[in-house]
């Protein structure tokens, strides 16, 4: 009997929820805002889908409607990736310890 690959993906998904649960509880409350901006940045890994949609057209035409949606998604996700990681970086730079006297 072969197992449907879907079940494997579902397993990864559910295990990741558990990993996420424990990892996020360990995040210190003072970093909750950077947590939101960085999760926002990493969820833009959806750009992977956008790139596939825009590049692997079966035909040679690259301006088919499905590609256009892919292109638009690339812009949106790219704004998020750069914006999200950089703004997180900017915030994290500001968290400093007390200077030693």
């Amino acid at each position: 009997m072969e197992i449907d690959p879907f079940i494997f993906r579902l397993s990864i998904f559910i295990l990741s929820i558990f990993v996420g649960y424990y990892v996020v509880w360990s995040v210190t409350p003072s970093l909750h805002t950077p947590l939101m901006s960085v999760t926002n940045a990493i969820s833009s890994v959806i750009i992977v889908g956008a790139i596939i949609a825009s590049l692997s057209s079966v035909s040679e035409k690259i301006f088919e409607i499905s590609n256009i949606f892919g292109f638009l998604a690339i812009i949106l996700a790219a704004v998020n990736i750069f914006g999200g990681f950089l703004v997180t970086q900017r915030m994290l730079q500001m968290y400093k310890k007390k200077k030693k006297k």
Partner: protein
Amino acid sequence: MISADLSAIFYLISGILFILALRGLSSPATSRQGNYFGMAGMVIAIIVTFLSIGNFSTGLIYVILLLLIGGSIGAFIAFRIPMTAMPELVAGFHSLVGLAAVFVAISAFLKPEIFNLGILGNIKIASLIEMSLGAAIGAITFTGSIIAFLKLRGIMSGSPIIFKGQHYLNLFLGLSLIILIFYLCKTQSDFYFWRIIEIALLLGILLIIPIGGADMPVVISMLNSYSGWAAAGIGFTLENTALIITGALVGSSGAILSYIMCKGMNRSFFSVILGGFGGTDQSSSKKDKDQKPVKSGNADDAAFLMKNASSVIIVPGYGMAVAQAQHALREMVDTLKKNGVKVSYAIHPVAGRMPGHMNVLLAEANVPYDEVFELDEINNDFANCDVAYVIGANDVTNPVAKTDPQSPIYGMPILDVEKSKSVLFVKRSLSPGYAGIDNDLFYRDNTLMLFSDAKKMTEDIIKSL
């Protein structure tokens, strides 16, 4: 072109790097390294995608061009945005993730063969369910985040918009989404697919408009969670491990933050979502307000009190963000420290408009993070402290939450500001906070009201110090 197995392994690696990125945030010391892990994960995912397609035609140039355009817009925003605008920035970014998920789902629906999902008109049922869920959650995230953005930015009023039958309408729309997905699977007709997206867009608006300004921390966290589930839905459609792992991480992260925020207000998640809270129903408290005596003072009084104190606790709130008073506040604290006063900061979980909002602002003003404490770390210290300086916070200090079971905020954990020897309360007027209730603290004997703008008052205090 690299094999599907190899790219799957690389996607797994980038998923693990994302986990490490979140893990880094457990302490400010490791957080920056964590962020680099996140960036590395993203770079790997993008490069592997290019390699697995292996199509280096003209299309690639367009893609890289678009990446650069989007990237420069994002970088520009990231460097220019003031820290006080962080809540609306995050809401805005969530809307982009949502819309991107919708667009990817649309192109997967229109050209299923490029994702190996079958052909148009005959897409695998499982894929149809996954992509329509991804598209629907993405669409809800998109419009919901836009409403949250408008409310946070002040373009739209923060007060809840409620009408009769609202919850039934939302319920009806939610159910019709499920029915439409069912028919989409049955008929494969694009008619249903477009209706799903339209209804989800509408539902996103309707879900967020009844939620008031003070509940925004919950809303932002919730939309954060939704954007994760949308990404996961698309991840299942595209059979992509990196997306599935990330979606699950972000989804559970947002859910935990919503839970923490709800707990900080002692409200159930559902009562926040159903909305309507934070209206201006203050009739009960208004009547006897005039009779109650209020002691008010000026900057000199405040400066005198604090200079002669041995310990001061600062309680910042949303008002500090609005007045941009964090830098002035830090200066004041520096001056106090020079006078030998011990100063610390107390942050309530729901202070501000998003989780951790106050911490970021204080960090921006160069306040060392080891002087900033959470509610349960510092709450016992109020009893031994000489002066509590409340700047821009209100409901989170209201002792009514402990004493009056009738109060809408009864049971909410509060900062025990009233236990300190004297309380300095910077506020523009006696108006109630967002919960619409009068603050008992105003009328206490040990409270001195400082009626002014948070920034101006703090600057005046610095002068008289």
